[in-house]
């Protein structure tokens, strides 16, 4: 596989890019901590922390693990994995989220049967 990368200027570019990513990762780590101490409300804090982590992770994957120049087959494997990873993570969230959403979808006829209640809502 090393033959794919070769010894020439192309490879040097790749290594230099990785060094750049290294510096970026150090900075982003500091940003992660700084942002945490801003004491944002929980949902925003989680979202922001995950976004930064995803960026950092993406950089590691793309440049350190050279996914950016990798073959299609590897992407397919990863694609499937990522899809199922999210299915797995949705499991625990679904118990609360789906029931909230479900309440909006399933209940319409019950709403029709109780017009008095809805008169009170500013719809």
């Amino acid at each position, binding site marked *: *596989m*090393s*033959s*794919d*990368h070769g*010894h020439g200027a192309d*490879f040097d570019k790749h*290594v230099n890019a*990785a*060094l750049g990513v*290294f510096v970026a*990762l*150090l900075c982003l*780590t500091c940003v*992660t*901590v700084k942002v*945490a101490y801003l004491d944002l409300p*929980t949902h925003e*804090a*989680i979202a922001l*922390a*995950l976004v*930064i*982590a995803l960026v*950092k*992770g993406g950089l*590691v*994957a793309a440049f*350190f*693990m050279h996914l950016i120049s990798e*073959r299609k*087959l*590897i992407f397919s*494997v*990863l694609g*499937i*994995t*990522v899809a*199922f*990873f999210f299915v*797995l*993570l949705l*499991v*625990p*969230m679904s*118990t*609360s989220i789906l029931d909230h959403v479900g309440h909006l979808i399933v209940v319409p006829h019950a709403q029709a049967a109780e017009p008095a209640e809805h008169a009170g809502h500013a719809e």
Partner: protein
Amino acid sequence: MEIPYTVEPRPDTGLTNGKIGIWLFLASEVMLFGGLFAAYIMLRVGATEWPQGRTILNVKLAFTNTLILISSSITVLLAWASLVRRDLGKFKLYMLITILCGFGFLTIKYFEYTHKFELGLFPRKSTFLAIYFTLTGLHGLHVIGGMSVNAYLLGPGSKLYETNPEWFTNRVENAGLFWHLVDLVWIFLFPVLYLL
């Protein structure tokens, strides 16, 4: 008997056996830590109260550890790059630094854990502590595993370089991919456990 495409890539896929193999393994590791992250989410969503990580855990130490792992990631990449450039001396230097970074990480972890235990903070005390110790513990085991492989490649394994430098370079690349995953997992663990 030789297995084809161990060293030279197969023309239609463009990949060696080891490269596909390590990525498949990494895919399974993503699902393993995914299972634990799913557990974290479920436990936290279902909890009546959940402490903010920084009130219990040592953010400074973990921040340092994050920097250490990120640094070790670049050094393992430079170790592989040295081999591509056929510089065995540089490879050994960078690989040694990578392993030392691993030791540094584990040492800090050791101090973190023992400090928790001194304060009576064990996994049985709360689900937060339980998931903290389990996630970082499993991650720590992976650090040890990665370090062992790296140490082998630095030591007895490097003999392969003399007879088949291409094959050895590929092995270091694949081991490096594992090490990057260890770093990647920590990049998520750190904010989730310590900061949120």
